[in-house]
Every structure is written in structure tokens, then in C-alpha cells.
């Protein structure tokens, strides 16, 4: 890339630092010029970073009021409080899934982009989420994750597939008005008592939205028995305005048309099937005597796909991780792509000429050559994921924040909202700090190694 700044973050340390700093001729000494150049930055860094690091460590050993020394008490709290533990647990999920997923996708995108002419377009598109705030990305995904398939784009896509596979029935959510006479069979219903020709079946249903009744429906009537036939009615056993009797076809109660009705013989074999008419009536003729069970099969009641509750307690963390992946894949792609661009074409071509398949080239040549860069990307992502905050706050609805919580957010909640406990807040901050210390050591080692 450019001659100025290395494209590779190299965990913050550029290789060129390895060159020994140029040695001016003067003896090393502090003079006014040196002080003048360093003091302003030193003041800011001292006041806003060095002092707070020390102060936070000290503060973490004092109670909420800050007036009594509690030793490791706050740390004990951090690791015993249910909410903080849940946050820690979520952070572990984040660390396990997120950096690996993003690095992997980054490699995949970068390698495949090498093979298409419009790579700049895709790379720009992938990278754009990195430019905007995590809060705005959170808003974007909160809109995508709306639960109703009518309003949430993601669920709308899933719904169009799901509803094509399981056709929703006419009467979703319907339940029998006389549960003691009817048993549930899967998602359908079956009358407890068997029927013989000449009998009349009554199946009253309630609890489904009136809007589900087709416009063709007419008021139900109690059908008269017919010799040699099993007849019956399915109707909405609820009189609008109230006052009807349960189990009885009252005037004004609507028949339920287009209901699939089956007769099942005692062996469980479907003997006959029909559809109810506009008044909810149905009839089975040509029966060979014997007894049958009346079944309203599940297909009448299949609910349409109601939408995955992405932002409910159980899925909220994976949903936020997915959004985070969307944000960060561009970073991994561009970084690894930059590394790929500097890679020797000859080596790849040589491998291809030697008869290696594309997969072998990828596995044996590309990945080993890219691995230092992949490690850097991975570490960068780990650091960032430990501090993840904005996305969680933006995507998780208030009531599921405890389920989506992460330590950086818990720090904020403990220290700056509610009771405002700076003691425990400091302990969480120190814990966070300890987690990034290995990276600090790594940076220093690399710098010194280069300098030496």
C-alpha cells in the first residue's frame, strides 16, 4: 500500500520501527526544547490515562461510598453477582464465536475477491459499516430484527419460506369450546366419542380471530340426522355480544366453511374426508356401518410462521453477534486483502502448475502465508469484542438487557446508573484491563525486538 503508514496494524506496531531510531549527534539530555515538545502530550496522558489507571486500581479496593477499604471484596462481588456473571458468560460466547467467524469470513471474502473484477465495489460495500457508528448499525439491525414477519425483514424472508412449506390453515389458534368432549391430536382435534351412521357431530370452536372466518360463511344451524349418514357442523361457538350457550348452535353463531373433516376408523385409517360448507355443515355418506372417529386434522389449524423472536431472552446475544459480524467483516476483508495483494503470485502459480487444486493452494500456500496477518486481525477483534458496548445497548430492548449484558455494559450500568457503585465498577474495569495486558506485552516485545 502506501509508503506512509503500513496497512497492517501488526497489533499496533509496524515492522519499520525495527530500524534503530536515528541517533542525533548530541549527548542525550533534557533541555527546554525537549520539555516543550513533550510536556503538552505528557500532561494529557498523565492526567487522563496514567493517573486514572492507578486511581481505578486503588478505587477497586474501596466500598461504594469510597470511605472504607474492602480488600478484594468488590472482586468477590463481581464474580458472585448473577448479573455480572451472566455478562461474563456472554463475553465468553462473544470471544469464542466472533473473532473466529470474522477472521474466517475475512479470509474467504479476500481470497474470493481476488477472482472477480468488481472487487472494489464489494470491498467498499463490506467496509461501509466500519465507517458508521455502532449505534446506527444497532438501529439498522433492530429494524431488521422486528419479530412480526409483517414488519421485520429477516422474519419476512424466513416466513415466505416457512409458509410455503407448511401451508397455514384457515383457523389458526382455534380451540374447542368444550375441551372435555374433544381431545387434541397433534395440532388437530378429535371427538372423544365414536360415531355411527345416523349420528350428528357438533364441533364448536373458539379463540380464533373473527377475521379468519371466510366471507362466504353463513349462520350455523343444527343439522338434522340422516339415516345411513354421519352429519355434523363445525361452528364458532361464541355468540357475538355474548349470551350463547356453550356446545349449542345458537342463532347468530357463524358456521365455519372450508374446514377439512375426516372420519377415521378404529384402526386409525382415514375412511372418508370432506369439507364443511358455508354454514359449517358436513356429511359423510356411503358408509359401511361400524363406528368412526371424527377428526379435524392439523392442516386446518397450522399457524402461519409467527416470526423468530430475535430480540427475546434466548436469541438476543446471537442476534447481536450476527450484527457485529456484519459490521466487522469489512475490516478483516480489507486487512487480509491487503496482505494478499503483497503475496507472491509466483508461489501461487507455481503450486497451480505443480497440479495442486485450488483448495490445496489455499490450504498449503495461502493460509500459511497469511497466518501472521490473520493472527493480528484475530487479536484486534478479541480486544474489540471484550469492550463491546454500543451494539448491545442499541439492539437489545430494555427488558432483555440482562440477557444480552456484557462486561463493558455492566461496568457502565453498575457505575453510572442506578446506585452508582464506583467500587464494583472499578473492579470490573481492572478486570477488563487485565484481559488486554497480554496484548500490551506483545506490543512491547515486538517493539523491543525490532529496536534491538
Amino acid at each position, binding site marked *: 500500500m502506501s509508503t*506512509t*503508514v503500513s496497512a497492517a496494524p501488526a*497489533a*499496533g506496531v*509496524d515492522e519499520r*520501527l525495527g530500524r534503530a*531510531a*536515528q541517533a542525533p549527534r548530541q*549527548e*542525550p*539530555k*533534557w533541555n527546554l*526544547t525537549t520539555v*516543550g*515538545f513533550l510536556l*503538552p*502530550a505528557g500532561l*494529557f*496522558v498523565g*492526567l487522563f*490515562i496514567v493517573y*486514572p489507571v492507578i*486511581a481505578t486500581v486503588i478505587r477497586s479496593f474501596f466500598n461504594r461510598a469510597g470511605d472504607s477499604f474492602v480488600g478484594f471484596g468488590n472482586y468477590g462481588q463481581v464474580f458472585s453477582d448473577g448479573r455480572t456473571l451472566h455478562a461474563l458468560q456472554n463475553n465468553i460466547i462473544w470471544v469464542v464465536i466472533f473473532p473466529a467467524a470474522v477472521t474466517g469470513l475475512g479470509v474467504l471474502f479476500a481470497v*474470493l475477491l481476488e477472482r472477480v473484477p468488481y472487487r472494489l465495489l464489494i470491498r467498499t*460495500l463490506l*467496509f461501509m*459499516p*466500519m*465507517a*458508521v*457508528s*455502532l*449505534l*446506527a448499525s444497532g*438501529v439498522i439491525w433492530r*429494524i*431488521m430484527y422486528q419479530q412480526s414477519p*409483517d414488519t421485520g*425483514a429477516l422474519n*419476512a424472508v424466513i416466513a415466505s419460506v416457512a409458509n410455503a412449506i407448511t401451508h397455514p390453515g384457515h383457523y389458526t389458534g382455534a380451540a374447542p369450546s368444550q375441551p372435555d368432549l374433544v381431545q387434541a391430536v397433534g395440532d388437530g382435534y378429535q371427538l372423544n366419542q365414536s360415531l355411527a351412521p345416523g349420528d350428528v357431530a357438533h364441533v364448536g370452536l373458539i379463540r380464533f380471530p373473527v377475521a379468519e372466518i371466510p366471507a362466504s360463511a353463513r349462520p350455523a344451524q343444527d343439522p338434522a340426522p340422516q339415516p345411513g349418514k354421519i352429519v355434523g357442523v363445525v361452528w364458532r361457538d361464541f355468540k357475538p355480544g355474548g349470551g350463547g350457550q356453550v356446545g349449542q348452535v345458537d342463532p347468530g353463531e357463524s358456521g365455519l366453511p372450508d374446514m377439512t373433516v375426516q372420519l377415521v376408523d378404529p384402526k386409525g385409517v382415514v375412511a372418508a374426508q370432506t369439507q364443511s360448507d358455508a354454514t359449517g355443515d358436513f356429511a359423510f355418506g356411503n358408509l359401511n356401518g361400524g363406528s368412526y372417529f371424527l377428526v379435524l386434522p392439523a392442516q386446518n389449524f397450522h399457524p402461519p410462521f409467527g416470526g423468530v423472536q430475535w430480540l427475546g431472552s434466548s436469541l438476543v446475544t446471537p442476534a447481536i453477534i450476527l450484527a457485529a459480524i*456484519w459490521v466487522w467483516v469489512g*475490516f478483516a476483508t*480489507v486487512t487480509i486483502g491487503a496482505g494478499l495483494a503483497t503475496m507472491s503470485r509466483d508461489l501461487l*502459480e*507455481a503450486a497451480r*502448475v505443480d497440479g495442486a487444486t485450488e483448495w490445496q493452494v489455499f490450504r498449503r500456500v495461502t493460509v500459511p502465508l497469511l497466518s501472521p496477518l490473520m493472527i493480528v486481525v484475530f487479536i*484486534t477483534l478479541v480486544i474489540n469484542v471484550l469492550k463491546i458496548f*454500543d451494539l448491545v*445497548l*442499541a439492539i437489545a430492548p430494555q427488558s432483555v438487557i440482562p440477557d444480552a449484558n456484557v462486561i463493558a455494559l455492566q*461496568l*457502565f450500568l453498575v*457505575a*453510572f446508573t442506578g446506585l452508582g457503585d464506583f467500587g464494583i465498577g472499578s473492579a470490573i*474495569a481492572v478486570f477488563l*484491563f487485565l484481559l*488486554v495486558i497480554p496484548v*500490551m506485552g506483545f506490543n*512491547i516485545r515486538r*517493539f523491543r525486538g525490532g529496536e534491538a
Partner: protein
Amino acid sequence: MGTRALEIVRPRRPTWVRLAENVPIHVFFIVAGILWAIPAIGLLVTSLRPVDLFNVSGWWTAFGAPHQLSLANYHSLFASSLIAGSFVNSVLIAVPATVIPVVLATMAAYAFTWLNFPGRTALFLLLIALMVVPLQMALIPIAQVYAVFGPPGIVRVFLFHAAFAVPYATFLFRNFFLGIPHELLESARMDGARDARIFTSLILPLAFPAIASFAVFQFLWVWNDLLVGLVFAGNTPPVTVAILQQMRNFGSSVDVISAASFLSLIPPLLLFFAFQRYFVQGLLAGSVKG
């Protein structure tokens, strides 16, 4: 190995064959392109629809019913001083938070590169160590310091951001300065120029690409920040905080939220397209900072 010679021997396949071979890859990128573009389009369209519709129908229905779309949400956004004011606050925070570390860090980097003083390496190592300190480490003590002094919210926020940019910026600039030929500096010194003059008239102009990379990154970092604003901004919130305050009632305030969010994307995206090269460099180098 003579690979190049071999390559010539290898028969070149016609373009259409290569295109056809890559069909799965093209499909892959079409899907990816859609996955990355759609959510953002969803935000834009949502911001153009009335809030009543949000809980009734999806934003994509607007493509079949363009009469749903209007700029009404943006009008009402600017009618209320709350959000409009927060954009001003964001600018007032992001500009000094960018300028201050540029000044401080170029100076410090100059000293670390071309002035020789005892403890130089140790101090620089400290700086490298401080680069990854999470800013969460400083929130509580600084909040306590601020509670005593109590300057207005905007100052609190940009001072904090400025300070946390210094280690990384110094590192970045020193890195760049190391690439400037030493002879250039020596000849200036021979001519009797003092360090202050060399710094302002020789080094700073040369350092423009590095400064631009850093400035673009830092401006966006601050513009996009939520946490520091949330803790320190008080009643002069930057736009991210102002949006978050609306988010308690997401479903019924989505008109304000989506419109403000979309507007908040515009400055970063403009910078992104205008300074893409600097942007990517700055971002890649800065992504490890605390």
C-alpha cells in the same frame, strides 16, 4: 523455477469459460452484496415512512406504495431542537477532539524521533503500553475529577477523547517521521534553524498524509462514540447519545430514531468516500486503540 516460462506454455482459456467457472463466486458476491446493502436501505426507507406504519407493515412495502414516503420525519427532526442541537454538539466535540491530539502528538513524535534525551526508549515503551489501555479504565476517576471542576459537558467529552488519542497518534506519527530522511533535518539544522521552526515549517507539511489518516480516523471515532458521550456529556449530548435517549420507546419513536440515525451516517460516509485511502489506513492502524 521458471514459472513465468511455464505460464506461457499453459493454454489461456477463453473469457467466457473463466466467467462460467466463477458463477458460484458471482452468486456468492451477489448474495453478500444484498446482505450488506439491504439493512442500510431498510434504515433509509424506514426514516421516510410515517411511524404509524412501522408497527403495521414492513419498510419494503414502500417499494410498491411510494406514496408512503415523505420527508416529514426529517422536518419534525429539525423542528425539535433536541436532535438538531445534538448534531451541533457532535461537531463541537469531534473537531477539538481531533485537532488537540494532532498538535500534541506531532510534537511528541518529533521529540521521540529527533531529540535525544535520557529515558527516551522507556517513555516510548510506556506510550506503547498505554495505547491499549481500555478507556473504561479512566471513566470513573475522570468522572470524579470532573465532578469537582465541573466544566460544561462538551469540554469534558473532547478533552477525554483527545487524551486517549495521544499515545496512538504519537506512535503513528513517529512511525511516519522515521521515514523522513535524516539528511533533510540535518541540513536544516546546519542552516541554523531551531527545532520549533523545523517542526512547523519542515516536518508538519511533510507529515500531511499521516495527519490526514489520523484525523479522519479520529474524527470518525469521536463522531461515532457513544460511551464517553453518555458518561460525560450531561445535557449537551452528541448525536449518538441523543438517539439512544429516544430508544426507550423504539416502536413509537422510530421516526425520530431512524431519521437521526440516517443523518448521523452522512458525515462518516462522506469522509469515507472522500478520503478512502487515508481512512482505511487510519482505521487499520487505529483499530487496536483503547
